[in-house]
């Protein structure tokens, strides 16, 4: 099964992502969904806006995915990041992996989201009432 790595503008459908990692050999599937919180730094957030350097983000995420698949012998792997406006409660990122057992699935899923957050050239701007902040810069 191929790794699925995508940057999308539209809402992410977790059901589709789950279906994309289904595999009859798998005993465990772990999923992480990162959603826009209704507050940050003590202030109410209206929405966030993600921006990506898309071709590089896809390249970095593809490398990360390859590493995880090899290290945890994954069956299915899907990593999808959304860009543009993401409202409170909506998913900005969904990562799903299927593996023989739960330990590998959990570890791989955690590794993937940590590595994507650390290295993928994607930026989040939090929009508050009348104020905007790029997280990190």
């Amino acid at each position: 099964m191929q790794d699925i790595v995508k940057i999308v503008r539209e809402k992410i459908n977790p059901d589709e992502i789950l279906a994309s990692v289904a595999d009859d050999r798998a005993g465990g599937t772990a999923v992480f969904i990162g959603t826009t919180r209704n507050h940050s730094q003590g202030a109410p957030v209206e929405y966030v806006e993600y921006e990506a350097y898309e071709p590089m983000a896809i390249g970095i995420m593809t490398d990360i995915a390859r590493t995880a698949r090899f290290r945890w012998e994954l069956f299915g792997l899907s990593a999808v990041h959304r860009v543009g406006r993401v409202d409170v409660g909506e998913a900005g990122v969904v990562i799903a992996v299927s593996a023989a057992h739960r330990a590998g699935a959990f570890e791989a899923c955690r590794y993937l989201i940590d590595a994507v957050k650390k290295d993928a050239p994607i930026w989040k701007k939090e929009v508050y009432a009348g104020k905007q902040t790029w997280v990190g810069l």
Partner: protein
Amino acid sequence: MRVLVFGGVREIVGSDSVEVELAGGATSEDVLNALAAAHPALGRWRPFLRVAVNRQYAPEPTRLSPGDEIAVIPPVSGG
């Protein structure tokens, strides 16, 4: 040389790419220095900026070649 910029740097620069004058043999570090010189508001971010060359993080300093795709990468915050 044309340099792609993103996120907070893009907003400070006011455009998603900028033309940076570089001498022959320039490096990724020269890109950051030239950009910071042209946009003083970037000064305090300078230590946190990285350069990507051809869509890969470039160890600093990396010698640039004509035709390279150069991008300035502010601290990332995806996920």
